[in-house]
């Protein structure tokens, strides 16, 4: 998949993805090569979480498994952790959560 600088911590699931999945714990100072560019991580990131596979523009669709999972709230540099703080759902929910976290129509 990644013939040069194969990552030991990051998994690309789908060719269209602009996120990579963390498959081994990432610690500050860890380095990795993402699509030919070296990235130095600045924080702890747990297994199953996502990082940007490249620089992502504010408002850009975010793809995982080749499927849009939302869009970027702000510009996200390659290698940055992507989660609730910088990624939002684009789903206009028919069903939403009430204050008790119960689905209501």
């Amino acid at each position, binding site marked *: *998949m990644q013939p040069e600088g*194969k*990552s*030991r911590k990051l*998994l690309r*699931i*789908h060719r269209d993805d602009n996120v990579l*999945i*963390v*498959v081994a714990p990432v610690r500050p100072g860890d380095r990795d090569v993402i699509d030919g560019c070296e990235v130095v991580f600045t924080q702890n990131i*747990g*297994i*199953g*979480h*996502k990082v940007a596979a490249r620089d992502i523009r504010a408002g850009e669709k975010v793809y*995982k*498994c*080749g*499927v*849009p*999972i*939302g869009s970027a709230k702000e510009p996200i540099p390659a290698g940055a952790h*992507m*989660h*609730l703080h910088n*990624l*939002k*759902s*684009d*789903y206009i*929910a*028919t*069903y939403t*959560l009430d204050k008790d*976290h119960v*689905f209501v*129509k």
Partner: protein
Amino acid sequence: MSSSNKLSSTNSPTLQGFLRSDGRKGIRNCIVVAYLVECAHHVAREIVDSFRGQPVHLIGFGGCYPNAYADRMMNKLCTHPNVGGALLLSLGCESFNRHRLAEEIAKTGRPVSTVVIQQTGGTRKSIDSGKLWVEQALKQIAEVPRAPLSVNELVVGTVCGGSDATSGISANPAVGRAFDMLVEQGAATIFEETGEMIGLEDVMSARAVTPELGHELKASVEKAAYYYKQMGHASFAPGNAEGGLTTIEEKSIGAYCKSGDSPISGLIKPGDVPRKGGLYLLDVVPDGEPRFGFPNINDNAEIAELIACGSHVILFTTGRGSVVGSAISPVIKICANPETYERMSDDMDVNAGKILRLEASVDEVGEEIYEKVLDVASGTQSCSESLGHQEFVLTYKSFEPIGPSCLPM
């Protein structure tokens, strides 16, 4: 990356199938012993147990009250291409229409017989009578004609069970790649679990081959959302952010990505058999107000529905480690979690956990699954098959027929 090379080297391999009167071909040739009410279950099981190691499978419907869905399921299962003949076990007073089922099976040219326990003289005589018939039927189906079977005649279903956080990032996307390869070769592939696709309705609709079908796909997810809400089921609570899931769409991808990237050719319901290759969504959620409880009480209820839609093989992804197989059609286990694989490797056909250890790509495991499908279709037993798993579950449900937009020409 190498999938296209791989495909050309394995282009339309020719397998041998068991030719049935409707033109469909089986990859197995079994006798089903089917009880038509729980009261006949024991007799049916005793008959099946005496043929251990031979292709005699136990299926059945436990209910005493009539149900059109169960009728249709039993009909489709007893005339599945992997089935060579059927023995029906009736107590005698249940409401299942045993006459119609036997007639429908006989019309296909398959050997069929009905043992009515009350008329035959009770348990022992019914077991003896059934065993005698199965012995003869096994000889008879050994004569079923063989015919070349191409990949484009296969129907392959997928389901996940015993999922964990690894399922959605290893085994499920790999099944998606295998589905893409199968569809490219002209096979029919079936995915389901609309109850776990909330947030992806529009994404899925956009893949439909017609806008009208797209509307139906979207409606099926909305129906599932309503139904599960009535069940008080928390299936749609937002994903666990701690595990790294950010949005509802992302949570739903786990189930959805097994469908791969192909266009969606149709929406079917249990018992509808795709008439041509392509990717199909199986809508397993009953129509109308909830009447009989959860849409599917466990994984095997879903597997039985995929088989009733003609599936020759089932691709079952698991993270925590399910062990189930099925009557009638082989189940191939794809294990998402590398630790589970190490612990339960006897039960697992494919180790997709390699993806998480970065020892294989999603594409490579997808190719491995594709090759495993062909291997099992050529007669090699899957792990669950060789371990003797033949689980089967059929319960009460109710469906309206699919609408005219569901299967565009």
